[in-house]
């Protein structure tokens, strides 16, 4: 790695990155660009890029017809419907309740607030398998809540409701943590202006507050959705895993793999990856728009 002598470091930097040092003469005084950049790109390629490329190449090896057959068989389509449907419902629930939670945490004072605020990140910190068995224990027919819900005709565990519940659990922090800074940045002056112009609290909320925080709310919604689509650990225990009914796409990939259908597993994975990349892209776009709006306000 070297670096014992600044002059030598600078020399290696010059040798390795001639166009950079020409363009950015001011910055070149710091050593280590060549080695850190080289290491970054190599490590990134070996761990992330090459393995991900393998996935696309493997499914491309199927050919168009077989690829289409692998990603559109009835069992696979049923799993998409379940996964995307439950994820959409869960992200919507999180958008609504996540907003209420973020609002109360930012605006109000109540006992235990700081602990509750810290606990919002529990789904991040808790291993997904642990969340999965905990939710199943509470909501199965013998569980604390399940035993009262079952006589009412509400079966949670081993149904799409249970899957949605697990996805609400793991997606909640995304909405709350995206909304909290946006709500804290809201300018009281604009609310005061709205009120002084005769708006009631509800009008101020729908016409002043909501439009301002909408990008953050949508970002939180999309992040929660993206996480839910790929989720596995917290769902498998509560879902029951019945093909065509409660089998999520992640689980289907595993069962394809267990049947030595690696190309089929790769093909379905590509569909999922494209879905989450698409979501990621729209999140970046949203944040870009929100950033512009934020800068415009100052």
């Amino acid at each position: 790695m070297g670096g014992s002598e600044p002059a030598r470091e600078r020399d290696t930097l010059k040798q390795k990155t001639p166009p950079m040092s020409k363009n950015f003469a001011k910055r070149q005084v710091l050593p280590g660009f060549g080695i850190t950049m080289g290491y970054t790109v190599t490590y990134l390629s070996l761990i992330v890029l090459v393995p991900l490329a393998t996935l696309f190449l493997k499914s491309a090896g199927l050919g168009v017809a077989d690829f289409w057959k692998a990603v559109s068989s009835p069992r696979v389509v049923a799993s998409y419907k379940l996964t995307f449907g439950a994820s959409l419902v869960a992200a919507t629930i999180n958008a609504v309740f996540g907003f209420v939670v973020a609002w109360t945490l930012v605006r109000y004072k109540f006992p235990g607030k700081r602990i509750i605020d810290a606990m919002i990140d529990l789904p991040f910190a808790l291993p997904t398998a642990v969340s999965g068995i905990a939710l199943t224990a509470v909501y199965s027919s013998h569980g604390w809540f399940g035993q009262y819900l079952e006589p009412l005709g509400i079966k949670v565990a081993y149904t799409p409701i249970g899957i949605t519940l697990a996805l609400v659990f793991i997606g909640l922090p995304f909405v709350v943590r995206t909304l909290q800074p946006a709500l804290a940045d809201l300018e009281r002056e604009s609310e005061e202006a709205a009120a002084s112009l005769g708006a009631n609290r509800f009008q101020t909320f729908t016409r002043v507050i909501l439009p301002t925080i909408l990008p953050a709310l949508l970002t939180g919604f999309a992040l929660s959705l993206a996480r839910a689509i790929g989720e596995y650990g917290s769902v498998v225990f509560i879902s029951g895993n019945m093909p065509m009914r409660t089998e999520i796409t992640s689980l289907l990939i595993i069962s394809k793999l267990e049947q030595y259908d690696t190309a089929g597993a790769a093909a379905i994975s590509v569909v999922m990856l494209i879905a989450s990349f698409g979501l990621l892209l729209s999140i970046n776009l949203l944040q870009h728009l929100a950033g512009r709006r934020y800068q415009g306000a100052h």
Partner: protein
Amino acid sequence: MNASTSNPSTLAVTLESPESWQVAGPQLRTATEESIWVRWLLVGSTLTFLTLVLFVPLAAIFAEALRKGWAAYFASFNNPNFWSAVKLSFLATGISVPANLIFGVAASWAIAKFDFRGKSLLITLIDLPFAVSPVVSGLIYVLLFGMTGWMGPWLSSHNIQIIFAVPGIVLATIFVTFPFVARELIPLMQEQGSEEEQAAVSLGANGWQTFFRVTLPNVKWALLYGVILSTARAMGEFGAVSVVSGHIRGKTNTLPLHIEVLYNEYNFVAAFAVASLLTLLALVTLVMKTTLEWRIQRDLEEAGKSE
């Protein structure tokens, strides 16, 4: 967990005492505040929702683990498969966290201290593993190193096993914790700029001295934050590791996989006992994370002020 504050009915009593509110009642309400009833409704919904979704499942882990008493609880740990799972989880975490720490430091140095074309593309690519679902994260290594994978025949002819063995588990763990340290360090170091480092170098410090005496003290909390988050994820990763592990008992089961085996065998007390250990780890993680957050906030604000 904290039953007194999470229970809406006890809260309702405290809500009536004016000192717990910024403004006591409807008659003192300003135009930019909601009526007391709306507040009650919102605080009540927050607590009910979090109780149903977060707090009760959390409590259930400990209740299920202790269902048959402390003796049965501790007996769950008296099992060679448990200890081999502990060892494997520590091994995978012990390799992946330092590996990603070194990567995170290198990447943030290159990205934050120098200008080059394609920087935002590089940042996006570093974040990529977060967009890949856990099962797919494991699958890509099976496609590369598995028996039917590209390097599979070559590996098996040289007697090297990666999939269904420890190296695969380590690789999958590295993948899922890949961006944690880098994404904490990059924005902070970009905000801090490189004036201090340039001053150190012009005063004769070499690269390592500059890094350890100038850069590291400025970013130590963010670095620790990234390490804590990646440790929690590495210890708890399930989906990715599940795909590459092969579930060989006593050999390729990490702690979360061990929980799954126990649970599927209807050995609920043992499953929840092991889960309770990982839950305690998660709670410790949350405490450290919360403490670190305000320190990082302070570092960021100081960096913002100096500019």
